[in-house]
């Protein structure tokens, strides 16, 4: 994942309502960047055998 600049991240953070001083936002940027790197693995998982409506918590807590 390409590195997000401080300016781009500040704009993104403002748009989603994530507030804090500059030091906080820089730490948040690092954390979000790391998380996005991990989440990118989700795109590699073929979930086509699970219908979207089967992905929510069933009333009995089971797995579809």
């Amino acid at each position: 994942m390409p590195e997000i600049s401080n300016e781009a991240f500040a704009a993104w953070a403002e748009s989603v309502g994530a507030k804090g001083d500059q030091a906080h936002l820089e730490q948040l940027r690092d954390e979000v960047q790391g998380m996005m790197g991990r989440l990118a693995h989700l795109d590699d998982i073929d979930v086509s055998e699970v219908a979207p409506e089967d992905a929510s918590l069933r009333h009995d807590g089971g797995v579809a």
Partner: protein
Amino acid sequence: MTSSQDLTSLTVAELGDRIRSKQASPVEVAQAFVARADALEPKLGVFVTRSTEQALVAAKQAEAEIAAGDYKGPMHGIPVGVKDIYWTKGVRTTSGSKVYANFVPNRDSTAVARLREAGAYSIGKTGTVEFAFDPTGRNAHYGMPKNPWRLDCMPGGSSSGSGAGTAAGLFPISLGTDTGGSIRIPSALCGLTGIKPTFGLTSRFGVTPLSWSFDTVGPMARSAEDAAIALNVLAGYDPEDPGSIYSEKVDYTKGLDGGIRGLRIGVPKEYVWDVIDPEMEAAFWKAMADLEELGAIVEEISLPELDWVPAIAAAMTTVEAATVYGDLARNRGEDLDSSVLRRVQSGFFVSAETYMQAARARVLFSRRMNAAFGSIDLMATPTVAMPAPPHNAERVLVGGVDTAVREALLRDTRVFNVSRLPAVAMPTGFSSNGLPLSMQIAAPAFKDALALRAAHAYQQVTAWHRARPVI
């Protein structure tokens, strides 16, 4: 007559026997634990709020009930450390947050109410990470409890005070919660036996939420037998928890002595071993050899889907936590622990599409786990990748791999949060610098009793769970 110090080193089963047979009175038991807490709390910082007066009143009541012939079972007259995210009627419940520093619930959580009905009582509210959102035990507002095995090391979290206090003998058993490992991680780091039950088996009503599709309530104990005793009280359908699942009533202590001869225990050959401390790994394989001696069949299994776990857990827990605490983060962010605030805010950046991709992957992962349990009875892994790190560590070298402490603590436990399966953590030895080592044994959904049976069998031929720290 049993000395005060002896009483605080006993398990719930042993204390229950002494109370039932009137070798020890509930008041003596309460006084012994209160005295130990008086002596050690300044050093350990286990409690957010102590409930000494209420505890002594409850102990007197238990004593009167038992004297009148109304013995309620092995939890009767037992003091419990209660993680400070469980509502306790009339006693403040901070959730580890400054925001809720003065919140006093007007009723008990279901778990606490069930313990009271069984004759147990809270001896105090134990330290927790704010909103239970971190595995280290850190808390900027109330401090991090010390690990009683080494005061310069972290106790693990988020049920940090419950872990440290049970290990130190400030109470013989405690309540924790487990969203990504928050019962099993402090159990592992503090040398305890803790069970994350099957999702839906125990009620979360009156427990501060973090991530509703993962949050699970359970006990942290000194033995598998004690965990089974507590689960007998805690398990059961509760209409006040939308995630609660009806299941047949089970006596979790009944089959404990059934042994494990012929049971097949699967050990994943992937993922777990990518980040592992050599002493933790050696203790794990020694434990597997011990289980084989007992007649179990230990076999390697292939589960390449374990690699999906960190992404699924990260996407779903951050979004769910941001849903629960988003308003607080936006409006009172300055009052939150800055690291917890960042974690909540991280969820703002995850799209709905990503969340649903993770949810679908979670179902797929659960199907793969269920398929694996078609050929094995139990699954075992180390509970955590390493023993307790120094209290201020952010990164650690684990088996030569530079790893964030949070990831090293969470990577193995959250396998069973994502799959919602029961898992019991238990001690397997000590590192060369005196810190507990641990493994977890997992079972199919609602086979919690089987996981406890295996843990109990292991604890009949080992003594790691009987070790007590010198503080």
